[in-house]
Each structure stands twice: as C-alpha cells, then as structure tokens.
C-alpha cells in the first residue's frame, strides 16, 4: 500500500500525541502539526498544505488561491463555529468539503460573555492594572441586577447566555431574524434593532459575520445607544466599526466596550482601539476552554475522518462532494456506512418572488450544495386585481433586473436551467415579454449564450366561450356558474399552467424558461418531475419552497434548497445561519391556503395529511409520506379581471373633538348631502356611481365587525369615488371637496374647517379592476392552452 494520507492541523492547542492526534492516526492518517500563532502568509499555508488530503484549521484565510494550489486537499474542518475565513464557493469548485462545528463552544462563549459583562460593570481590568502600577483605585462600579442585556442574535451562543444573565438579575432583550413562531423563550423580550440599541445597558453581539452584518455596529448604531451602555463582542470583530467605536467611547457617548474579537487579529499596533479608556481588547479566547477545545478537537477530527470517507456530517457543501462525478469521493479507509444516496434532484428557490431580492452569496451556496435547477415565482394575485387587469407588473424593472442578472449568471456558470413562473406579477403575455426583454438585455451585457423560452398563458374570451358552451367550464367555490358576458368584460384572462408546458420547453432545449401564469408550485416541480422524481414529494416540496425562505426561521435571510428523492424530500435554508424546523416547514402548508391538507394542481391533488416531518439536524428537515392523487379530469384554472369603473380619491382628516364621537353621523350626512349635490349638479342618481367613505382611525378597516368601540382621537377620511369614466369620478370628488373641508355634524350650528392632507385633495386613480373568474376549464391535454416560443440559438440578439 502507498503511504498513509496526511492531514494538516493548524489549531494551536492541538499537539502531537494528544487524543486528537491519536484519533487521526488510529483512523489511518499521518498528522502534520503546524500551529497558527497570529497570522500566516498565504504562501506558507500553501506550502504546509502540500500533499495534505485534509486539514483541521484555525482561522487562517482559506482563499480560492489556497484551494487552487492545494490539489490533494479534499476536506477542511474549522475547529470552531464561524467560517467567514473560508471561501466556501472556491472550496466547492476545487472539490473540497468544508465543515464547521456549530454550537461546539456555545457554553464557553456564554460564560466568557458574562465575565466580560462583570469586568466592564466593575472595571476589573483597569482596577487590576492600577494596583499593578502602584495605585489603589477606589472608584465604584455598577451592579448587573435590574439592568438590561441586549443580545444581537439568537443562535446557540446567545441562547446559552440567557439563563446565565437571568441568574444575575439582568432582563434580556433580543433582536433576531428568527420569526415569532420560533422564539420559545417567553422570558426574553424580542424587539427590533432600534429598540435594542436604545434600551440595552449591555449590548452583546452573537451574530454571524456576513456582508449584511459587516459594520452593523457603526457610528449611527452607536449614536442610538445609551451613553452609559457597554458593548460586548465575542462574535466577529468586523461586526463593529472600530474607528467609530473608539471615537464614541473617547467622546463619552458610550461607557465602554469589551472586545474579544477585532477586525484584524492580533490587534495591530496602530489600531484605533488601543489606549482608549473604557475599551478592553482580549485575544479571541471566548470559546477557548479546555472543555470546548477538547470537544472541538475531537468533533473536528471525527468530522474530518468522516468527510475524507465521503460521509461528512456538518459539511457546508457536502452534497456536491457526494454526488460530484468530476471528482469521485475517495476513501482512505473503506466506508463502513451505507454507500451513495439514491438519485436526487435539488431545486434552488432564491426568494418568494423575482424582484424581492436575496443575498447573492445564498445563490453561490445553493450552487455549491449541488442545485440542479433554479426556480422562482414571478407573480401572485395577492396584491390585487390591478396587475392582471392592467397587464403591468408590481415589481420595478430595476428590482427584476437585479435578481435576474444574478440568477442568469448562476444558471450559465453552473449549467443548470432557470425557470421563472407567472412573469410580470400576473403572468399576462405582456408580463412574459417584459421579463424576457429585461433578460435579453442582461444576456447581451453579460455575453451569456442561453436559450430562452417564453410560454404564454393568456386566453381569449372567444375560445373560452366555446368551452363554456360545451359545458367544460366549472366554478370553484364560492363562485357561481360563469356568464359568457363576464368573459367579454375581462381585460385579461390567464390560465394557470401545470408543469407540463415548462417541461416541454426544457425538453426542447430551453435553458431559461419564462412562463406566463403557472401554479406557484409548477415552477419548482417541473424539473424534478421531468427527471422522474415521484409526484407526492415533488409537489409537496414545491409548495413548501414556493415562498423561498418563508418556510425557515429567518425568511429575510434568503431562499431554500429542496432535495427530492424517491422516498421524500429534504429542505434546508441557503443561509447557513438560518434554519428549517419541523414546525417552520409543516406550518408553511397553512400559508395562503384554504385547506392545509390538500392542494389541487391541474393533474390531481397533493395530499399531505399523512406526511411526517423529521429534523435531520438543527437546520434541515426531512419530509416523507406525501401523496399525489391523479384526478380523473385535467383542469386549468382561470383568472380574469375586469374594469369596474374609474376612481378618484379624496382625503381629509378630522381632529375636532365635537365631531369625533359623532363620526358615524358625519359619514351618513356626507353620503346624503353629496348624493343631493351630485343629483343637482350632474343630474346623476346614486345608482350611476359609487362612493366609499372610510373613517380611518375609527373603523375603516373592519367596519361593523370591529370588536373595539369608543371615540377615536383623530380620523382620516378617505373618500373613494367610482364612476363609469374618470371625468365623472373626478367631478363627483370635486363636488365633495367643500364637504370634505367644511361638513359639520347635524347638531352643529357653525361650519368647521377640516384638515385636508394635500392640495389638491383629490387624486385620480385611473381604472379600477376586480377579479371575476374563479373557474376551471376541462383541458384535453396539459399543454394545449399554452403557447411555447423558443428562438433558434441563444437569446443575446
């Protein structure tokens, strides 16, 4: 046999002959200890990695160049939690698995955090230094009891701090992206960042360093803190703008700071943090206890062995490593566990809607995890009928272009398809063309040669009337039978496609599919179904991921990756700091659904009542047992909107304490007098137009079902006039103008002057729309109602 494979160990407390060394040698490896003390030149790191297949590393920068120049390297394990020092995307491209050890030192860091709190409150370091220097300091300190600890972040470490802080009598507040449903500690008050900054006596940072959190504590954040507050940082130095911190403490705008971590470590001689009374810098030791080091060393070594055997347990990019055919997993010793997972399809959903935005690194991570397809929804009916009725998009072109550029690049780089559904919000033909125009511009600018398919889903009233006459159009509750005239009234009608037209476009060679109206799930389901994944898990996974990060504990952190296989599916967030829990995943079946157990698709019904949800670890959830029952009749659901009239809006406000208790009488009088004036002026009866008067601040939102009562403090009155044409609507609103300014209540013997919010008080809203179709058409075959256009060649021209 050849010489045993070598692993590099740079973590400084791991030494030859210790139990970690024994473990690695027993596993058949040769160890090479090169402890990192301070910093290390990249070339030196590359030199000591020479010939190494694995590495247990401290926090030296593992850059793309390091990975490129360490060709033998196959697995890296960080003996800690943070991995901002590792270019994971570069590692993935180089075929190197990267693991960290989440939670391994949570207790150690939590105890250290308390030590820093006490040291700041009692000034332990300056006091000891004073005694050392021959003085006898007598200044008093402060007690922790009764004070407020603000935690930024709610991960394993922050949660470990909570009981320790409460034992000292601190009240604990927390700002986190974890949604309310996932915050299980009722003793912690969750607040937004502004409130946390403004109320904390001690602000302790426990969040990961990402582009979004770099310099989160900057001059403006510091300015919002109490001047008596202390900042505690055991997380990452770059979370804090050190220059701004030093200035704030020097100027007395902040009492002090205890920093276990700094932007550059060791602390540079010219750091602004040096010699600032009140700021104490420590040498990144919060996680360094004998207990945590032992755990990190042993867990790290076990993970490294597992990763080199192709079975990493906490790898950040494991899936690519397992399935990559480019670089088959090597085994230094025979794997003892079951080999190779079954065939899978991985769907990356970057966000709930194209144009909603997402952190670009989440896409890199999804690709690194082995995404086979990127799917994103481009629309929804949720924002109302205007977008379908007018055929315009809710999102701005700039926002769509920003997201699309990242996704098109990722699709081209990784060689995987990109599918966008319900383009332009409502999926009208104009919406498809709008997104295609934006995509074409990007493809030209980026010189990407991708073939783009457009799938149009608009339906004509004439064709649908034929189906109606054939008895092939059926209402869905709560609608009644369809009247043919309703079809003629619609400005746009779309059919919601299933996955089949998208599959047809992919099979015809499209790399990018821009679909008109599609079911939210079809967009994600198309590629897995095309690749033979089973319908139950595929549709269920597609429903769970259609809103991106909505099924995670931090919807704002970006999207998700679903891995579908023959037995079910596994779902995980793209942001390593976010988590999917059984509750967050299962609860997503509730979101915007009438029935949480069944969901109708064109070809059948997804049944999830028997599905089981299992946590694989603290951020991935496995779902099995979802079923799909094919329907006897394939149906396409219709959406249509018609113009109800043209609207003009007027707005005034009332603060007069005499009118407010009589606001209902005032509204009734407004209707009565306005109707009379309109009759006199325009010769128009109330049946020829409509007026809605909404007393905001009283009961405008809920009307008669509002459970509260009592006079409001002030009321904003919105008057919405709807008439058959814009000129009439505006004429009525102008007739109402003096009333909106001066209308009294019936018992008043003078004319009040009310508070118009703007001049003019009226604004024209243009046509107003209403959804009028909630019906399905019996379709002969799934693609028949949709038109697929794929140009020859790519779509740069």
């Amino acid at each position, binding site marked *: 046999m050849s010489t045993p494979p070598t692993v590099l160990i740079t973590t400084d407390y791991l030494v030859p002959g210790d139990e970690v060394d024994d473990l690695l040698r027993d596993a058949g490896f040769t160890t090479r200890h090169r402890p990192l003390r301070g910093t290390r030149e990249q070339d030196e790191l590359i030199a000591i990695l020479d010939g190494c297949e694995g590495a247990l590393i401290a926090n030296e920068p593992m850059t793309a160049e390091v990975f490129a120049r360490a060709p033998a390297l196959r697995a890296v394990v960080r003996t800690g939690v943070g991995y901002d020092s590792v270019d994971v995307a570069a590692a993935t491209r180089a075929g190197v698995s990267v693991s960290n050890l989440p939670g391994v030192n949570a207790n150690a860091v939590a105890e250290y955090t308390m030590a820093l709190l006490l040291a700041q409150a009692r000034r332990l370091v300056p006091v000891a230094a004073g005694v050392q220097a021959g003085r006898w300091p007598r200044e008093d300190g402060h007690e922790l009891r009764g004070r407020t600890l603000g935690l930024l972040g709610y991960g394993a470490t922050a949660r470990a701090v909570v009981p320790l802080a409460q034992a000292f009598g601190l009240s604990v507040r927390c700002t986190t992206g974890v949604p309310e449903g996932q915050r299980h500690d009722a003793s912690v008050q969750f607040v937004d960042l502004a409130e946390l900054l403004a109320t904390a006596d001690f602000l302790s940072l426990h969040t990961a360093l990402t582009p979004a959190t770099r310099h989160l504590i900057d001059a403006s954040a510091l300015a919002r803190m109490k001047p008596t507050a202390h900042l505690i940082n055991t997380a990452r130095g770059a979370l804090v703008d050190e220059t701004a911190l030093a200035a704030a403490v020097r100027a007395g705008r902040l009492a002090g700071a205890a920093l276990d971590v700094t932007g550059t470590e060791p602390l540079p001689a010219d750091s602004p943090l040096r010699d600032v009374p009140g700021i104490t810098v420590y040498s990144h030791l919060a996680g360094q206890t004998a207990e945590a080091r032992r755990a990190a060393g042993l867990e790290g070594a076990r993970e490294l062995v597992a990763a080199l055997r192709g079975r990493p347990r906490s790898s950040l990019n494991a899936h690519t490593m397992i399935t990559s055919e480019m670089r088959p997993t090597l085994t230094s010793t025979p794997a003892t566990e079951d080999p190779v997972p079954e065939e899978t399809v991985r769907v990356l959903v970057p966000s709930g809607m194209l144009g909603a935005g997402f952190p670009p690194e989440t896409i890199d991570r999804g690709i690194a995890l082995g995404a086979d397809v990127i799917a994103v929804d481009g629309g929804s009916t949720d924002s109302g009928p205007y977008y379908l009725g007018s055929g315009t998009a809710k999102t701005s072109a700039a926002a769509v272009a920003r997201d699309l550029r990242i996704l098109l690049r990722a699709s081209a780089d990784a060689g995987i398809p990109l599918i966008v559904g319900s383009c332009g919000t409502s999926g009208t033909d104009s919406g498809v063309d709008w997104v295609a125009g934006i995509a074409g511009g990007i493809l030209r600018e980026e010189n990407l040669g991708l073939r783009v398919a457009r799938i149009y889903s608009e339906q004509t009233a004439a064709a649908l009337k034929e189906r109606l006459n054939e008895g092939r159009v059926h209402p869905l509750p709560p609608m009644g039978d369809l009247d043919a005239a309703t079809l003629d009234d619609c400005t746009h009608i779309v059919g919601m496609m299933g996955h089949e037209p998208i599959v047809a476009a992919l099979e015809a060679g499209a790399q990018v599919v821009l679909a008109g109206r599609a079911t939210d799930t079809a967009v994600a389901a198309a590629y897995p179904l095309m690749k033979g994944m089973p319908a139950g898990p595929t549709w269920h996974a597609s429903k769970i991921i259609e809103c991106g990060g909505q099924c995670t504990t931090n919807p704002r952190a970006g999207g998700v990756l679903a891995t579908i296989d023959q037995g079910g599916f596994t779902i995980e967030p793209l942001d390593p700091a976010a988590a999917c829990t059984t509750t967050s995943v299962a609860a997503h079946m509730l979101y915007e659904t*009438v029935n949480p157990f069944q969901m109708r698709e064109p070809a059948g019904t997804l049944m999830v009542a028997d599905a089981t949800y299992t946590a694989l670890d603290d951020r991935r959830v496995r779902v099995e047992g979802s079923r799909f029952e094919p329907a006897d009749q394939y149906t396409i659901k219709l959406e249509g909107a018609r113009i109800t009239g043209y609207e003009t809006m007027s707005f005034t406000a009332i603060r007069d304490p005499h009118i407010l208790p009589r606001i209902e009488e005032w509204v009734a009088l407004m209707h009565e007098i306005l109707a009379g004036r309109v009759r006199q002026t325009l010769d128009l009866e109330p049946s020829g137009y409509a007026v809605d008067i909404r007393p905001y601040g009283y009961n405008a939102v809920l009307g008669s*079902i509002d459970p509260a009562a009592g006079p409001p403090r002030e009321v904003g009155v919105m008057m919405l006039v709807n008439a058959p044409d814009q000129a009439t609507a505006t004429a009525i609103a102008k007739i109402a103008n003096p009333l909106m300014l001066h209308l009294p209540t019936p018992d008043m013997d003078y004319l009040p002057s009310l508070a118009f919010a703007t001049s003019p008080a009226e604004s024209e809203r243009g046509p107003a729309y209403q959804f009028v179709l909630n019906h399905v058409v019996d379709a002969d075959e799934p693609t028949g109602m949709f038109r697929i256009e794929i140009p020859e060649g790519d779509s740069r021209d």
Partner: protein
Amino acid sequence: MTDDRRPTLGELALEVRSKNAGPFWVTMELFMRTAEDYGTVADEDFINEQVIARLYDLDPADIQIFRIPALNVVKISYPRPVAQGSLRDRDIHAGQHHVPLAALVPP
C-alpha cells in the same frame, strides 16, 4: 391593583394571523404555544362555525375549520366577504381580519 381580566386569544397565542388564500378566500390561523392552550381553542364548544359566523357576519355553512394538533394550530377559512381590490375592499391582503378572532376570550 390587580388585573383579573382573562387573557384574549391574541394574548394567549404565539400568533394570530389572517391572509388571503387566493382572491376569493380569507384564511386565519391561531398558533397556540402549548398543547393545553391548543386544547382550549380546538374545543368545538369554544370555536365552531356558528361562533365564527357571528363574529364575522358570515353564513356558517361557508366556514371551514381545520384543527391541527401537531402544530397546535386551529385554521379557519371563509369566502372573502368583499371581492379583493373592489371598491369596498378595505384590506387588500386580508391581513387585519384576524383582529375580531384575537379579541375572543377563552373560557
């Protein structure tokens, strides 16, 4: 001074929310913190179609109630009383319809 007022569902629950389920339906969810609180709200003597119909001025026959013990959730769906985005629709996303439900006081 003691406050012996009994807590409302909104105070008891992790979250009470409402949202459109498509343009023609509203759906609401009560996320309870504990199995015990779930048991209280899942009790058909407390929340049923008639109670919701009175609260929201609806026909009881239109109301669908789903009780999901695994999530400590009671979900209630009903047809939108006013078409979405129409002149009289004052809550385009139906995001505030949960308020009367949240104001209920369990026995």
